[in-house]
């Protein structure tokens, strides 16, 4: 087995939790399949992130600092990763299925002419991989038949890496061909929120179509969200109805979360939604329909009118904290 290259995203100059999860996934792959873990950090001003990445006991950190890499862009980043894979005896490339990981990894795989497995939840000893398919209705055992395997991992299936011995840091330069510099960054419009990140929060409160309007999210759900210090999520039905933006969507085609506590309010529990939250440690459902499928996965189900129950719950949380 050759080396396992882990792509660590940088956000605002440092490593987000998703990158620590990627490092941990790389370590687990190495413990089962052999090989050293190398961490790739790419960007234009990455000294601090490189030092941070070197603190998790991996064999090496490969730092690629270049003005052309200031913003993440699929074409240039894919070209760099391809070169790192080729130059470092890499037999497995791992990233987490974040927006960037999903955008980037297939492009690297195709540049290498190899297949890819998305959203892997487990590395098996025999080299096969486990991944969900059909909105989580099935778990598939899949095999990648190439010498270089490209794998994205689901963030909820791995813990964040714990700090370890310092890694060696190697500064690497790469060349970017014309095909790798066609995309231009124009702007980033960041969602303004004081709440925790949906995929990292320990408590998530999600609303569904039962809330009936975007205003009701503000009036009923948000006080509970903030009282709990939670992140806010939504079902696809609520997004489709225009109540809240799509980046709050939890489910098959949105974000996958697994917090300590997940509270589903006015969500019926379509399989596509369950695919994004059923691994949460404790699930609470508030719904007036006692037959709603969400109750089949909920640890605690409150059969009630949410417009009465949610304000009561908010008050009760406030009292419990006091």
């Amino acid at each position, binding site marked *: 087995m050759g080396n396992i290259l882990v792509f660590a995203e940088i956000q605002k100059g440092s490593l987000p939790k998703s990158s620590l999860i990627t490092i941990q996934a790389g370590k687990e792959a190495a413990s089962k399949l052999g090989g050293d873990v190398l961490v790739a950090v790419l960007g234009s001003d990455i000294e601090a992130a490189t030092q941070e990445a070197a603190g998790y006991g991996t064999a090496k950190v490969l730092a690629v600092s270049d003005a052309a890499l200031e913003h993440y862009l*699929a*074409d240039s980043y*894919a070209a760099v990763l391809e070169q790192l894979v080729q130059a470092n005896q890499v037999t497995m490339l791992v990233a987490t299925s974040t*927006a*960037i990981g*999903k*955008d980037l990894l*297939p*492009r690297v*795989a*195709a*540049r290498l002419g*190899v*297949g*890819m*497995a*998305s959203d892997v939840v487990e590395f098996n000893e025999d080299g096969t991989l486990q991944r*969900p*398919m*059909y*909105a*989580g*209705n*099935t778990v*598939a*055992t*899949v*095999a*990648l*038949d*190439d010498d270089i395997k490209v794998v994205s991992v689901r963030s909820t299936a791995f813990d964040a890496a714990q700090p370890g011995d310092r890694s060696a840091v190697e500064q690497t330069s790469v060349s970017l061909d014309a095909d790798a510099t*066609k*995309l*231009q*960054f*124009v702007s*980033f*419009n*960041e*969602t303004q929120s004081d709440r925790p990140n949906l*995929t990292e929060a320990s408590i998530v409160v999600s609303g569904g179509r039962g809330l009936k309007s975007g205003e009701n999210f503000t009036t009923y759900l948000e006080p509970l969200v903030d009282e709990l210090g939670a992140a806010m999520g939504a079902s696809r039905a609520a997004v489709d109805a225009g109540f809240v933006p*799509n*980046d709050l969507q939890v489910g098959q*085609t949105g974000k996958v979360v697994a917090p300590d*506590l997940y509270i589903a309010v006015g969500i019926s529990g379509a399989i596509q939604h369950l695919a994004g939250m059923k691994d949460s*440690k*404790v699930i*609470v459902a508030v719904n007036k329909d*006692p037959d709603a499928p969400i*109750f*089949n*996965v909920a640890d*605690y*189900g*409150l*059969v009630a009118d949410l417009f009465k129950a949610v304000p009561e*719950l908010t008050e*009760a*949380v406030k009292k*419990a904290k006091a």
Partner: protein
Amino acid sequence: MKVLVAVKRVPDPETTIRVKSDGSGIETDNIKYVINPFDEIALEEALRIKEKLGSGEVILVSIGVKAVSEQLRTGLAMGADRAISVGCDQELDSLGVARILAKIVEQESPEIVLLGKQAIDDDANQAGQMLAALLGWPQATFASEVELSDDQQSVKVTREVDGGLETVGFALPGIITSDLRLNEPRYASLPGIMKARKKEIKEIAAADLGVDITPRLTVQMLEPPTKKEGGKKVETVAELMTLLHDEAKVI
């Protein structure tokens, strides 16, 4: 402006998926098939581009069993001009799909290729990005807004990414994959359905394209997920709080 749209035949998202008892696949009896919902959004965007410009051509392509012609016919009824059906009976992985599509792109020379961000059956989310790499084209995945420049030479695409919306730009040709909020696809009208009957579906065989489509990713076994038992039902907020505090210890 020539726009190529790739569509996949997938089980209707409302269908309950069951794994065969021997784990070799899913039960396909009584499954209704539809155009992958994200591909329908991609097609709608292509139609809107053509309608806005007042000229152009929207070409559909699908790969798979003969029955994909049903989905192509639906797409033609929505307004696509013609379709290509690439016959292929073997299982394909995303790389194989991308290699076939790259050949079709070579033959058709579209300025834009639109695809759904992911198919809701294998949930891979790979084909568009792989196609872009094979062609050496720029890619904008997870699009929520597509803005063509006045001279039709370039495009700005707003993308749904973690923590906000990112806008990227590139000179055409390029690849765009659709996210949920890009648009709301139209229904085929009755006149559209009538017209679609006369539109061309060109049939070609994947084997004749001269590309290696041997799957690199193979599914060895499918299992149903571990079932979670439903828990306790309560009727009052007070009961719920007691359980969350004393039993689950999460509040």
